[in-house]
């Protein structure tokens, strides 16, 4: 059996509440910006939580990437097109053989519109369009079609772990040698049903999102899309492609404790992280930064915090969801890009709104401000409903290569 191939990230694209593109995302991360705002898209008067991380529609629809796109497409499609456009600007010749993306709800808000119109005997003239653009896989197909990419798509819906699962499975596909180039990513757009769902579980907060804080009171939702071009490292170097980072490990686990709650000791997250480290052939001491799942719910943070402190000794940890909210199926892919930027620009992204660590946790939180640091290896966590847990490990690739469009930090 051949040695496993090394896997490079050679381009990336992102749109999230932190900004459009890598440069804006980097700027928001480095200035520890709070990008959560009041929800205006639908009524939240009866919800505890009234805020979310949101992508500006006016900006999304007026961007050059969207000019010739159909106004019928769902926002999630537009976000994917935006992210893919950025990636292809960096690597115009990137032609994936396979695409693996994560999502939880695709074009859900079109489904809502359709149902609402049915129930209230409203205007259904556009129903066929809503139905056509509702399926979860549609945004990735739209994005690929927009740029003439014909790769088959695997769309993973492992709840909030989906994005990291997509990056991880894409990594495995390249590492096995079966594929040379895989497009990985994730997307989700804010939808009323999902927003109200988390509110009904009392998982979302009327206050600020404060991951790992003693006074944390829940999550805020977010939205966005992110894509990564993943390639066989050797082949990428042979054609002088810039290597933004290397993905070196992936771990997945399933804990069967409860459909919405993690096993309290954090055994599931611990297993996922442990497997990712083993898969990467590194020890916990080699990790310089953890981008935590960190939703700021009482149970999730407790379980993840215990898992991290059981495996690691004082590694800097932050949850960037504190800045942009939890974008569900997109989160893992966006946070992989956060790690990529941290590796490239040698800084630790902040965990904002933080005042005091949970008394029961022993973590080294990057509190409130980003700070410069030597970051060679980063681990990113995502955990979801149904007890799905996923972790990926990324490594700075020498020699240091500037991210196109981001400038130097």
């Amino acid at each position, binding site marked *: 059996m051949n040695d496993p191939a090394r896997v490079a990230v050679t381009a990336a694209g992102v749109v999230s509440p932190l900004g459009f593109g890598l440069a804006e995302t980097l700027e928001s991360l480095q200035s520890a910006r709070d990008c959560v705002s009041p929800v205006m898209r639908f009524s939240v008067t009866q919800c505890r939580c009234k805020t979310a991380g949101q992508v500006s529609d006016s900006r999304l629809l007026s961007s050059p990437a969207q000019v010739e796109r159909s106004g019928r497409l769902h926002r999630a499609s537009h976000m994917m097109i935006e992210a893919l456009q950025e990636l292809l600007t960096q690597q115009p010749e990137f032609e994936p053989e396979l695409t693996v993306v994560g999502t939880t709800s695709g074009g859900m808000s079109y489904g809502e519109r359709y149902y609402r119109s049915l129930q209230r005997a409203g205007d259904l003239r556009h129903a066929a369009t809503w139905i056509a653009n509702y399926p979860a896989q549609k945004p990735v197909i739209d994005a690929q079609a927009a740029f003439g990419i014909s790769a088959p798509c695997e*769309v993973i819906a492992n709840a909030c772990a989906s994005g990291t699962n997509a990056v991880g499975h894409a990594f495995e596909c390249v590492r096995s040698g079966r594929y040379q180039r895989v497009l990985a990513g994730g997307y989700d757009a804010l939808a009323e049903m999902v927003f109200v769902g988390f509110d009904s579980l009392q998982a979302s907060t009327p206050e600020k999102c404060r991951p790992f804080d003693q006074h944390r009171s829940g999550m805020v939702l977010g939205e966005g899309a992110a894509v990564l071009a993943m390639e066989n490292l050797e082949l990428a170097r042979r054609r002088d492609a810039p290597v933004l980072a290397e993905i070196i490990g992936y771990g997945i686990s399933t804990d069967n404790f409860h459909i919405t709650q993690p096993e309290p000791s954090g055994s599931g997250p611990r297993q996922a992280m442990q497997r990712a480290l083993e898969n990467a052939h590194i020890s916990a001491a080699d990790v310089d930064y953890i981008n935590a799942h960190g939703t700021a719910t009482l149970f999730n943070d407790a379980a993840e915090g215990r898992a991290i402190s059981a495996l690691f000794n004082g590694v800097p940890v932050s949850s960037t969801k504190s800045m942009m909210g939890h974008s569900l199926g997109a989160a893992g892919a966006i946070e992989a890009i956060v790690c990529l930027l941290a590796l490239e620009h040698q800084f630790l992204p902040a965990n904002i709104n933080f005042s005091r660590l949970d008394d029961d946790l022993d973590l080294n939180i990057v509190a409130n401000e980003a700070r410069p640091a030597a970051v060679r290896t980063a681990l990113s966590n995502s955990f979801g409903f149904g007890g799905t847990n996923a972790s990926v490990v990324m490594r700075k690739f020498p020699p240091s290569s500037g991210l196109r469009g981001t400038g130097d930090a």
Partner: protein
Amino acid sequence: MSLAIAGMGWVTPLGTAIDLVWERLIAGEEASATTISEEFACRSYAVFRVPESVLKHVAHARLRRASAISRFAAAAGLSALESGGLKIDATNAERVALIFAISNGGVIYTKRFYRDIVNTGAESASPLLFPETVFNAPASHLAAILGITGVTYTLVGDGAVGLTAVKMARELMENEPLDYCLVVGTEEIDWLLCDAYRRWRLLRVAPPIEPYGKQNGGMILSEGAGAILLARDGRILIECAHPGGYFSRRAEAEELLKHILCDLGQTEIDFVISSANGTFVDLAESHALQRLLPNALVYTVKPALGESVGAAGLWQVILAAEALRTRELPPVLHADPKVPMRLSRSRTVIPYARHAIVLGCGLNQQAAGLRLACD
């Protein structure tokens, strides 16, 4: 790498035992249609439903509040494990992966959850229903019932998603230290789905589904689940899993299917389990098959069992495996005698059958294919 089917299970409108449903299909039987009524309009739809009675034996604490889609999946998955003789315990739980193929998902609870929000506002939203609306709820229930602690994935897509899930299983078995992979596809019916497909002009008012007809008369929806247990060894092999792709317009489906058939048809193919369902899919498949595999026998089960979308691909794989094992094909029901294809028009013995293609063309732009072989 060798990948084989070690066990199979399904829940269909014609029953749940593999052998019995197969015999009924071989005898030319079809499911009986019932009607389902819209909530907000005086419209009803013919559908093929799974009788509630067949799920009585599927009892587990995790399924108490679960929707039909999860119970179908659990029944099929447990049946596949039983037929494969696999017991999952602490010693092997990490070496068994679970992959789900989902299309419309838990539409019944999703609709109910959202209906409450529309009717009376967010305050009435049920925290018990919400988790069941998530695409991976059925997978998480089955993983909990089986005690699987390692790899669990839910894939979403259209009618081709079941075949994509088998392809993913193949990728996992190559990479991971796995002994088995259980692949499950599942679907439940609700009037809301019927209305949506009707608005897309894909549904017909009443049976029968007339496959490969010129009129594209439409399909009848059905529900249920299919599951296959994949292992390293066995008599029926998944010889090749084609990644397929997507088509931007329906007219492009034929070219994509030709591409899939061209790759999978490198070996002599004895028969094809097609996904023809009375819609535009039929014309695309028949043109592609006539062009590339004019001598292969073709069978579609959808006139007999309906279009089960998320479950359909797994049903097709099970049918291909049964046909290779028993070396015969059931009759294609309700096909016009003038259809210029080599259809299995009656119970057809295929004494030396060794290779089969399972072709999946979905209604939402995706297509994929598998080649199975009998050792």
